[in-house]
């Protein structure tokens, strides 16, 4: 046993694990600061800072340690952290109890947990956001807060 252990240590190259499947959730850690624009398809969990814009087809989860200044656009947005700016969701937004939001929310469906703080304006007119016939069953789009983030 110890022999193998030693060998491993010698060849250690500091490299993150390679196991990434195609559609994994992007994850921006607590120490990461992003200035600019994040776009594309996929889910994102952010724990760090963003100064700029999210524009995603997918879910965005703003974790408790996250600080966002700017605009977040996504299908589903769930906020536990702090956001200054606007939140625009195609499907729904949830503000959890630790959320601190200052700004504007635009979404067809909204839920706010007790304890959340929200300073700003809400707009819920859904005529623009739902083209006819896109009433999906919602089971596919559970609120983020309880779902495990990573799927294969």
């Amino acid at each position: 046993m110890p022999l193998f252990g030693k060998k491993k240590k010698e060849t250690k190259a500091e490299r993150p694990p390679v196991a990434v499947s195609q559609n994994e959730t992007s994850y921006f850690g607590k120490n990461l600061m992003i200035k600019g624009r994040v776009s594309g398809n996929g889910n994102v969990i952010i724990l760090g800072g963003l100064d700029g814009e999210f524009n995603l087809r997918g879910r965005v989860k703003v974790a408790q340690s996250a600080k966002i200044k700017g605009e977040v656009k996504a299908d589903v947005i769930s906020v536990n952290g702090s956001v200054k700016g606007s939140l625009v969701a195609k499907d729904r937004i949830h503000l959890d109890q630790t959320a601190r939001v200052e700004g504007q929310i635009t979404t067809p469906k909204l839920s706010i947990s007790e304890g959340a703080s929200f300073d700003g304006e809400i707009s819920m007119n859904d005529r623009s956001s739902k083209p006819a016939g896109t009433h999906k069953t919602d089971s596919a789009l559970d609120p983020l807060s309880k779902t495990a983030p990573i799927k294969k």
Partner: protein
Amino acid sequence: MPKDTSADSISLLSKNVRIEGEIQGPENLHVEGYLKGAVDLSGDIFIGNTGIVEADVEAKNIVIQGEVNGNVKAHQQLEIHPTGKLVGDCTAASIDIKEGAVFEGRSNMIKSSRAAAGPSSNSTSGRGPQIQKQPQPE
């Protein structure tokens, strides 16, 4: 939750996601998507097979399996895998370029890394890490 000793978590930029802008912090980053702008990390960056980076990159260790257009600076090691492609200059304390890798550009070694690495925790975070590079080609 572990506390924030430098770079203990790995951030992931997945395949269909792109970032245009600046990224910084004491964090490890795994890129499978598209990244344009500037990257300045005191952790490691790993650019996977599907990763495309058009940016100047600075990090502790840099591993390239995908594509990088820009200048890279690795405070420790730069590694280019057989599938990797680097177009731009590199600066590193140690380089490891595998057979099949593509590298177009100049390479500068960070000299006397051991002497400089003593109080290693100081530089990296600020604006200008002052590593003296001598402009001699060898």
